[in-house]
């Protein structure tokens, strides 16, 4: 082999192995930098997606970044993320304080999605045997009220968000409370009904404070998760939630060996009090 070329001091087989090793090594190096960037870009948590969007991870998997949803939006609500916006580039998002989602009943942004990243079935219902679009089923986000900066919580009458809500008196209700400070007035405070709110952001747009006191957050950010440990014992519907829960104890510590009475009366040497 090596006498084919005078310069070659290593065999072709060695050369091939070395070249492959170099290529694979450089690929690993490039791949790690590349993946680092992707993971960083994917981790932006505060993005509001168009109606019908799948959960964020599946959405990113399926969105082909064609921008046709943004083209279809008649209110220019949807933007396409640009480099520098600190979001995965090319994906659609909206900022409610600038332009909220006006909840078109024909939802033009969803059927144009070629990949199904915006899932038509999640914003459809069956009516008289036909499948029709239903924007009220959208879950773009959830409005959250900051009680400190909402003037209704001071006792000043303001129902801007309540009146701006397209699902009037369904997604935001006004709660009446006695104002003990004056003794003769009432608080009329907004309360968001979380399973009705679509996250359209018209309330955020309408809010009168300098920075909105009611604002839409993605549901993964604004909502907690009860898990299986708590249940409304007085609510038959809620009890069903725990029907298939496993009763197995998954966390075993030295405490779990004792009976409840034992460990409630004994701090387990935690505070070292003789």
């Amino acid at each position, binding site marked *: 082999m090596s006498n084919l070329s005078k310069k070659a001091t290593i065999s072709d087989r060695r050369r091939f192995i070395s070249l492959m090793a170099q290529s694979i090594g450089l690929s690993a190096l490039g791949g790690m930098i590349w993946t680092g960037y992707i993971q960083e870009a994917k981790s932006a948590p505060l993005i509001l997606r168009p109606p019908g969007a799948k959960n964020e991870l599946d959405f*990113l998997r399926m969105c*082909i970044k064609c921008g046709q949803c*943004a083209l279809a939006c008649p209110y220019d609500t949807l933007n396409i993320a640009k480099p520098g916006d600190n979001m995965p580039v*090319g994906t659609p998002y909206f900022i409610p304080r600038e332009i909220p989602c006006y909840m078109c009943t024909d939802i033009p942004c969803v059927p144009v999605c070629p*990949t199904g990243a915006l899932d038509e079935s999640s914003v459809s219902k069956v009516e008289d045997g036909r499948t029709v679009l239903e924007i009220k089923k959208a879950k773009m986000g959830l409005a959250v009220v900051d009680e400190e900066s909402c003037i209704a919580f001071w006792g000043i009458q303001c129902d801007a968000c309540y009146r701006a809500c397209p699902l009037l008196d369904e997604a935001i209700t006004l709660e009446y409370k006695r104002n003990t400070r004056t003794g003769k007035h009432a608080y009329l405070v907004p309360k968001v009904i979380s399973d009705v709110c679509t996250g359209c952001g018209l309330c955020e747009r309408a809010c009168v404070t300098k920075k909105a006191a009611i604002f839409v957050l993605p549901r993964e950010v604004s909502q907690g998760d009860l898990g299986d440990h708590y249940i409304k014992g007085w609510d038959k519907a809620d009890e069903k939630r725990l029907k298939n829960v496993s009763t197995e104890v998954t966390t075993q510590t030295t405490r779990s060996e004792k009976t409840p009475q034992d460990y409630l009366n004994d701090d387990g040497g935690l505070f070292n009090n003789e």
Partner: protein
Amino acid sequence: MSNLWKNYRFLALRRFVQIGLLFLYFSANAYGFKILTGTLSSSNLFQAIPLSDPFALLQMFSAGAILSMDVLIGGFIILVFYMSIGGRAFCSWVCPINMVTDTANWLRRKLYLDKIEKKVWLSKNVRYWVFGLALVLSFLSGVAAFEMVSPIAMLHRGIVFGMGMGFAAVLCLFLFDLFAVKNGWCGHLCPLGAFYSLVSKQNVLVVKHNQPNCTLCMKCKDVCPEKQVLAIVGKRSGDVVFGECTKCGRCIEVCEDDALSFGVRDYINKNG
């Protein structure tokens, strides 16, 4: 004037196609002309025919996405077109980055940068590794990896929807091509070009060489962005069979001896 046309006819046609397509996409967003909507990743022609980037679909598939029929049909149309007819024509006739890198290349020649560069330190095969890497990383990260960083998509979306900081990415690429490596992006790194090179080994449209006419002036090789494909020039008549040929037609324009032309691939007599 007729000489000018003869020397730049394919270049003019390419710019017309490139800019025309960009205008159609742009006008869909700006003026609401619904002829061609979307971006190069996926679009809709006349609101009826879906068109999708097959490489993007391949990455999405690798990332574990369940692809809907619309994009699959769109990807199939594009793939069949380039596989059977166009070859790697996407790169020089459609891709907007081509205008950026062609400008860098032109400036290189004007500034004699080609003359001072001693050795190209980047292999032309790197792009195939980048192509493979894009698929592996899509699988590992659960998103279409190249689509997250693609300067092609950034520039195209930038023109349709607004550039943002995308111009910086395009500028980096321009500077890389101008000062670091001749044809650095399109000819060495771009996995989309690699993809089209891989699928277009048997397409119909090819450059044909008529060896008896050739005077070995080598102008074609000077201007060719993938000069390895012109290996037969001056040696024998036949077809330029490499998938890496972008069908830009520059070699045909600069040839003053009618030794090169576009034609139909000779599938039977492969040696011409």
